[in-house]
């Protein structure tokens, strides 16, 4: 069953994001930001260069395996970025 279509943006063109030795890519879903492991669970393909299919799933460029956005967010290795702290006004 396809999930409800969400507003998704993938950080294709951002510089590499490394954290604790792992590569991540930036994923925006309905305005929330996530760092998602940049490694397809099938064969390690670079998910950040994937595309969204008609069902709104992220398609790996290596073998075209498709992953729901919800599964990427729910991955325990995915990091949800907290909202930026308010900037103190001088």
């Amino acid at each position, binding site marked *: 069953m396809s999930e409800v279509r969400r507003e998704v943006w993938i950080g294709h063109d951002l510089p590499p994001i490394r954290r604790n030795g792992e590569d991540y890519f930036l994923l925006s879903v309905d305005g929330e930001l996530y760092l998602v492991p940049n490694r397809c669970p099938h*064969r*390690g393909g670079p998910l950040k260069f994937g595309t969204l299919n008609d069902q709104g799933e992220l398609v790996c*460029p*290596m*073998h*075209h395996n498709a992953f729901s956005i919800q599964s990427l967010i729910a991955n325990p290795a995915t990091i949800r970025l907290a909202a930026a702290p308010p900037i103190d006004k001088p």
Partner: protein
Amino acid sequence: MTCKALADLAGLLDGEDDAPAAFDARIDQVGDDDSLGAFVGHQALLRCYQARYVVLPAQAPAGGVLAPMLRHYDERRLAALADLRPRLESELIVPLVRPGEGDIAAYVEAMLAEIRGAPENAFVAFLADADHRDHHYRNFLVQSSPDLLAEASASALGIIGEYGEPQSALFRILIDEFGYGVPAKKHSVLYRATMKSFGLDDAYNGYWPWFDTMALELHNAIHWLFQNPVNIFKQVGFLLHAETAYQRSTLAHHRYLRRFHPDADARYFGEHAHIDLHHTRMVIDEAVVPFTARFGDEAGREIIAGAELTKAAFARAGDHLLALSRAFAQAPSASYGQPAEPRAHIGRPVTPASDLRGVGPVRVGALGVLADAADFAAFPPAAIGRVAP
């Protein structure tokens, strides 16, 4: 190709019996036995292709690696092999190529249905009932090793250049063949593990004296496809057939190994049974379709020609191996077993059409020995035996 040209080449390539297997480029002599012509020609063509690839021994030779490398990749030798290659190809491979005919979309649909509906793998069925299946399987592994111990080296030549989106699809397939960057996952490394689990030497080219004519023909037909960029559409045809047929055959081998050789390393076959499902789709959707959309029916016919050459080459090699295995199983004087070092005592080659009168015991690949050489006369024509020392 004249016997003199092959003899001259044999002289040029001689003298490496103490070299690491990877640098052992010897070929046999035709001599007075005309029935050896095709076999020695294919050996020479194998050497032409091998000379273009980087191969290194697993361990450093006692005297260092550079001296044998300089000898193996000597410019004069490389030039001689490059000069002979087109002549050998025109005699041995080009006659196997047929023009492609028909509509590519219909061809792909029919090919998928034919392969998916194909009967049980005949060699695997033979093995299931064979008394000495472990020896037959070793010989299968040895005869397949000329290509698989450096798997995808030929097709790598088809990636270089610049030809649009299909190039990226073919490159992604190549990435898988080379283990997507993980040495232990390279298909050649997985194949090496299967050979070792059957007690075989896993050195590249280590079993060259036992390669028979049809094993060499299959290797050389595949490598011929990738020597000239004019064959790019035929190369796609090769991948179309090979990736699809390999799904089925490797699955059959994987199941066979699990059932009859549970301690054997079957990862090579399991890997192909899985990843080639993806590769078939990638070849069709990302190479066949866009190429034919861009270049029309003539590209489609070339793809069909490549697929048909591949199909025929695999069929000839498969039929031969099955006939050879049956012949050995039925030979009255056959005894199974193999020496530890095939390059140590090579013995002169013979075919079933050779004059076998007065000839001593004949070794047949990794299967074993025929105590009575006359038994060899009943073997398939492309079989190669070695007069045991």
